[in-house]
């Protein structure tokens, strides 16, 4: 790896802080452009969805257990459980699925 990890961390932290700080420190007027407001509204859903699938399927030791975990997470999220509850359900389902797969 040719790049310096600390430099990566500083770039990440610098960009992230500027995004958080600039509007709060500088902007005194209200954003009114409806397209821009709508775009910002959809951004978190778009990027989290892109990051989650299909990567979630390769996040455990096998695709089958990951699929079980994803199913459990989807069900818990659909019931609007808290972030931590959903994460725990996913982990528990992966654990259970891998035990079952081990028995086969």
């Amino acid at each position: 790896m040719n790049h310096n990890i600390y430099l990566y961390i500083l770039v990440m932290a610098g960009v992230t802080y500027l995004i958080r700080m600039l509007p709060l420190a500088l902007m005194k007027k209200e954003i009114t452009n409806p397209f821009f407001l709508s775009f910002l509204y959809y951004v978190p859903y778009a990027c989290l969805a892109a990051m989650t699938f299909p990567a979630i399927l390769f996040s455990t030791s096998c695709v089958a257990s990951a699929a079980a975990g994803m199913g459990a997470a989807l069900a818990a999220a659909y019931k609007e459980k808290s972030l931590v509850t959903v994460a725990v359900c996913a982990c528990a389902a992966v654990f259970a699925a891998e035990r079952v797969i081990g028995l086969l």
Partner: protein
Amino acid sequence: MNRESFIKGIRDGIPIGLGYFAVSFSFGMLAAAGGLSVGQATLLSLLNLTSAGQVAGLNLIMAGSSYVEMALTQLTINLRYCLMSFSISQKLERDIPQFHRYIVAFGITDEIFGVTASRRGRVSPWYSYGAMSMAIPGWTAGTMLGAVSGSLLPGFITSALGIALYGMFLAVIIPPAKKNRAVLGVVVGSMAMSTLFQAVPLLQRVSTGFMIIIVTVAAAGTAAFFCPVATDENL
């Protein structure tokens, strides 16, 4: 110092800190598995305080991507904080010294923003500081312990914990997708596009960071064009 606001912030920050601890534990494991030292993983979490951006950043570090790609990826993924920051700027008490804005800004995360935005009337910066005083140690310590113990834990535990962050992401996107068809379209469309990037030979050459940028801008842009949201839903 506003003692009452600070204590309220601490109270609301406790569940956030606990949740962060669990999730960042999983991030610490990922980071250690990706070759970061315990110190580097801990520093990363302390300075960034964001889940999605850190996971994407870690992928880029492991891939040896350029610093420009890293900066652009963070900009895109964390662009939502821009909106939250603006919202908080309207919500903070008037006539506070400017330096408070620089500190409050550091603590703008999905969850801290959530509890701050849900408070009635103007908010003291000390409320933010209270929440941050729980959330930041939770996030940082979780990462450190995850990085330390990830390699010590047996494989079946790390395999099960590997999915935790993705589970949390689903917990963020599924409930609004249930209620709002445009959000559902964005979620399904983004997942379909990122699957294409994973599956189609030519598209596989596009790095993870740019894939996330392209998919995010395409999906959010399309939805913003065809289904603009009313202003009060945003803030």
